[in-house]
């Protein structure tokens, strides 16, 4: 009985593992039939190679008639195919649009900004030569993406730490070190701390001979606090694209 349970758990684990592998190896979903089978093989290999290198799920999705638009639509496609952070290159023939969409499951590990995504979209659209060479567009997407992805590492919680963040941390640490050493440097010098009270005649104090506090006027300042609407709770993932490029 126990062996059977263990076997079932193992089977479930292997099945889930396979599901994950399947989900992460989608490579190219070419519903618009824009690529030949050999092109698909090439692109899938390239997507996989870049994905492994960057620890991202990179895939290409094409469809003839777009069933929606905007980042919400791209998100629904992405979430259907992938359970990992990644980048999707989306091409629709009706309307003739290309999108580069980046997705993060915790909304905090984006590696590219909107402008960069848009630059890649424009480069891919231009490479497609008005929609006649989608292989060139896809290859441009992959090569440009590889160029633009910032260096860094994935931490234990799968948050991407960019090289620029590391560099900024280092600069801040150098500044902290400098400030501490400066404090130490000035600590090498003893300072005068004698208070006048030390020299007051024993038993004497500050005698107030006269005191007068005259009220003159009052000034008024009004500060208006904007009522801030509370933002909804986070949770779930999200993504962004460069806004798309027509071809």
């Amino acid at each position, binding site marked *: 009985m126990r062996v059977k349970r263990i076997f079932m758990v193992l089977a479930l684990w292997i099945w889930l593992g396979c599901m994950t592998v399947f989900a992460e190896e989608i490579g190219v979903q070419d519903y618009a039939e824009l690529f030949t089978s050999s092109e698909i093989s090439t692109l899938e290999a390239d997507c996989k190679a870049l994905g492994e290198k960057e620890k991202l799920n990179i895939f290409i999705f094409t469809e003839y008639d777009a069933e929606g638009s905007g980042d919400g639509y791209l998100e629904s496609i992405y979430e259907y195919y992938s359970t990992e952070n990644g980048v999707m290159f989306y091409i629709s023939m009706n309307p003739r649009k290309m999108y580069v969409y980046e997705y993060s499951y915790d909304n905090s590990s984006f590696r590219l900004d909107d402008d960069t995504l848009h630059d890649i979209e424009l480069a891919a659209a231009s490479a497609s030569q008005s929609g006649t060479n989608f292989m060139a567009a896809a290859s441009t997407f992959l090569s440009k993406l590889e160029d633009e992805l910032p260096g860094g590492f994935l931490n234990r919680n799968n948050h991407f730490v960019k090289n620029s963040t590391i560099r900024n*941390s280092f600069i801040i640490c150098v500044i902290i070190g400098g400030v501490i050493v400066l404090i130490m440097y000035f600590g090498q010098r003893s*300072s005068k701390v004698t208070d006048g009270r030390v020299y007051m005649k024993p038993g004497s104090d500050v005698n107030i001979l006269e005191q007068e506090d*005259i009220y003159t006027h009052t*000034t*008024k300042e009004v500060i208006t606090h904007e009522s801030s609407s509370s933002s909804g709770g986070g949770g779930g993932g999200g993504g962004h694209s460069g806004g798309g490029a027509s071809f």
Partner: protein
Amino acid sequence: MTLNYKCPNCGGAMEFDADSQMLKCQFCDTTLPIDSELESQVEASTESEKEPEPEYDDYHGYKCPSCGAEIVTDDNTTATFCSFCGNPTMMEDRMSGVRRPSRLIPFVLDKQAAIANFKEWTKKGLLTPSEFRKKATIEKLTGMYVPFWLYDYDADVSMTARATRTRHERRGNKEIIYTDHFLVNRRVFVSYDKLPADASEKMDDDLMDTLEPFEYDKLKDFNMGYMSGYYAEKYDYTSQDMKERIEKRVKEYGDDAARSTILGYETVMPIATNYRLKCSNTEYVMMPVWMLNYKWKGERQTVAINGETGKRAGKLPSSGARIAAWWSGITFVCFGISMLIQLFH
């Protein structure tokens, strides 16, 4: 006339001992209390002092009462050591009449205690080069009586200030801040007792001010015996010369005193202050100071330790290598911590 103290038992030189607060023979450990009868122990040289050479106007020759060698000092030295026999020698004629201090605070820290104090200080100076902690450097610590004027002052200070107090009121999403403005006048009277000002030109004023406060309950009537075994200077500046400096200080203290009586306000901005200062007494005294002159990177520096309280003054040298080591060490530790945070965030 020069003098030194000879041991009644062995004839050796006697020096003031900070531990016992008595004169102590450096050879047989005989001790003598410092009192008025001490003068009988004096061995003096009354030989005519050598006339100053015209080309060395600032220097005067004295005869050592122990070995007869010539002791060359500058105009202000009142206690020193013979360069030949090493015996402590005092120039009594430079400590007579108006140049005789009325009182002094004897050394409480002897050389060993001063060295221990100095070592503790350099240990805390994390940027201090290790060469500076070497025995040869520390041995250069010199005990010296520094001339000071003590002033008693009465200060009558009138201060006018602008002051404000704020009240807050909340109405819906509006916050109203009312600021009440006041014109505040205060007249205070404060008596200051024994405000010190060093009277030696050679001494750095800031350094001497940093050594304060001295504990005046240890002031003793002046006796040459306390100076045996230490260097000493007589004053360069008269009490009148130092008045400007000391009155500046009395005014600062008076400002603080007047300001301390303006209470209950959030901001206080003095706009006018008048002072009426009266000096009721001045006294010429000697204060004990351990001094160390050193040269670091071609620059002459002085550090000092209060010979009574152990308070330190001056700037310890900083080593470039140590600065670099600490800077890089702190940077890498901080960076390591930040990377760990990034790794597990």
